[in-house]
């Protein structure tokens, strides 16, 4: 993985604006980006988008031999893949630390928390069990990958249905979906992970975007500002902790974690409710034989629509619908004399010269104008 280069001015600006109580995209500290879940044509495939972060998850199943020590339990594999499509700094065909970390977090949340009833995946003890495989593909990386990936994994697992199996004597028949209704996966509880970025050791930001994530984990050269970190917390709908992971150099007091946990538990519950609702509504649509596939999101989120939301830099009250005011048009008709001059100094540049002279780097020397 190539380095992500972060300039000092981005770091200083984000740190300053966060300490003043704002965020770049106009959100409050505890506000998440809009979450959107859409399903594919098959059971167990979904695309989850959290703002501009997008993750595709697909569950598949096959019949395998169980492990010797657990002869009556099915298997669960989670596989995370990233490629340069997600972000330009990710290299192709190379396992990055980020992908390994993500994989481990998801395994902790869904395998180690025992949320899936693996015993129900057993067909013949010591001989045949179902093996579920979750393929998670990162489509776009704009921060908070773990939350987006975990929602995608959970939704895909909860949405997935495996073919029905009948045993008669020694023979096992796997029925086609058209023959017999497929069986949904049994989930004991629904864990969801969430990320909290810690700034200046005491400011907590929910759902950090890529810039906020890289700023809070980056070290500051002069060493004056204390560093922050990322806190990953996983909760299920009963508000029980499933995962917790702290990276960076942030932990200065236990109060931070407690503060983070309170916000995260409510948020995770909301997300789980949303996932359940999405699956139920998808199920009713499928029963009515409405065709569902990913083409829906392509038409919904085409290029022109993207401009209306998810700007990375946004004022809190910016809303595109307010814009069309008729009285504005009158103002355009008589061009006002401008206070500031736009000068095209060189080809391909245009700069506003302020009369207040806010910085030193533009020196409007007389000889440069003559050139």
């Amino acid at each position, binding site marked *: 993985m190539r380095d992500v280069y972060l300039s000092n001015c981005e770091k200083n600006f984000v740190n300053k604006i966060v300490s003043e109580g704002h965020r770049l995209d106009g959100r409050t500290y505890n506000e998440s980006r809009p979450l959107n879940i859409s399903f594919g044509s098959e059971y167990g495939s979904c695309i989850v988008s959290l703002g501009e972060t997008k993750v595709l998850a697909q569950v598949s199943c096959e019949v395998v031999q169980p492990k010797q020590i657990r002869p009556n339990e099915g298997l669960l594999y989670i596989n995370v893949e990233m490629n340069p499509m997600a972000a330009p700094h990710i290299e192709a065909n190379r396992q990055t630390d980020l992908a390994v970390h993500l994989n481990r977090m998801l395994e902790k949340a869904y395998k180690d928390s025992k949320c899936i009833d693996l015993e129900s995946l057993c067909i013949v003890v010591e001989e045949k069990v179902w093996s579920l495989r979750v393929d998670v593909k990162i489509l776009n990386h704009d921060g908070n990958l773990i939350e987006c990936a975990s929602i995608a994994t959970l939704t895909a697992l909860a949405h997935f249905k495996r073919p029905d199996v009948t045993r008669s004597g020694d023979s096992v028949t796997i029925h086609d979906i058209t023959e017999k209704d497929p069986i949904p996966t049994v989930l004991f509880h629904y864990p969801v992970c969430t990320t909290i970025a810690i700034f200046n050791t005491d400011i907590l930001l929910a759902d950090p975007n890529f810039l906020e994530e890289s700023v809070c984990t980056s070290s500051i050269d002069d060493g004056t500002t204390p560093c922050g970190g990322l806190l990953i917390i996983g909760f299920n709908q009963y508000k029980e902790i499933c995962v917790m992971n702290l990276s960076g150099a942030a932990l200065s007091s236990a109060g931070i974690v407690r503060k983070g946990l309170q916000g995260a538990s409510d948020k995770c519950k909301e997300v789980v409710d949303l996932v359940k609702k999405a699956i139920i509504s998808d199920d009713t649509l499928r029963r009515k034989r409405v065709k569902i596939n990913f083409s829906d999101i392509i038409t919904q989120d085409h290029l022109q629509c993207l401009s209306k939301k998810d700007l*990375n830099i946004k004022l809190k009250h*910016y809303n595109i619908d307010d814009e069309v*005011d008729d009285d504005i048009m009158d103002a355009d008709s008589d061009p006002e004399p401008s206070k500031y001059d736009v000068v095209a100094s060189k080809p391909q540049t245009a700069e506003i010269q302020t009369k207040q002279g806010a910085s030193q780097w*533009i020196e409007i020397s007389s000889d440069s104008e003559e050139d």
Partner: protein
Amino acid sequence: MKVSVGDVVLPGDFSEEIAAVGEKGKVILGPGLRKEVDGIYITKAGTLKKRAPNTFWVDNYQKRYIPARGENVIGIVVQKAGDIFRVDVGGSCTASLSYLSFEGATKKNRPKVVNGDVVYAKMLVASKDMEPEIVCVDSHGKKGRLGVLEDGFVFKCSLNLIRKILNPECPLLNSLKNEWPFELAAGMNGRIWIKANTMRETIALGNAILGSEYLSNDEIKSMCTNIASILAGHIS
């Protein structure tokens, strides 16, 4: 497939139109076109465009910068290596910036540049097989507008948006300049550096620039007025 100017083209398509013009006179092939022994081939997906007399290129939505000579770019200094700085300009490899290519710099008088600084520079060498080289002075040794950018904020956007706001017909900068004072430097590599008196004004500026990507000229004007009224309204 055979294509002509104005068509939506795909890699592998070929244009006999350009080849025919090329037989008569000189033709300039822009991004997305390549000359092979048996004709002109398309290497990018997009629309084939032409500018009189004989310039052709493929236009598409793009975020990845491909260095081109003479363009002004914004880069981040990532490494000091002997007498050059390595600068990330968003291309496939870092660009090199000699410490002598600053105004008034000599071997003894080194410019003050540290890692993480943002520089506004001009592409001097942009070859297909070599590391690009950038400079912070013009041919007279003057810095003009180039140099290290201090404070402010840098954000990334698509290359198309940069071209749009630098287009003299785009009303964005002209509408914004009446509203509040600010400084702006737009690099052709899809990075914009902005600076205003307050944080809120800086964010409003970034918002206006990013928001203008898919708006028409009239909509841009009304958006700028709208943003200014939000700013003036003191709604937190």
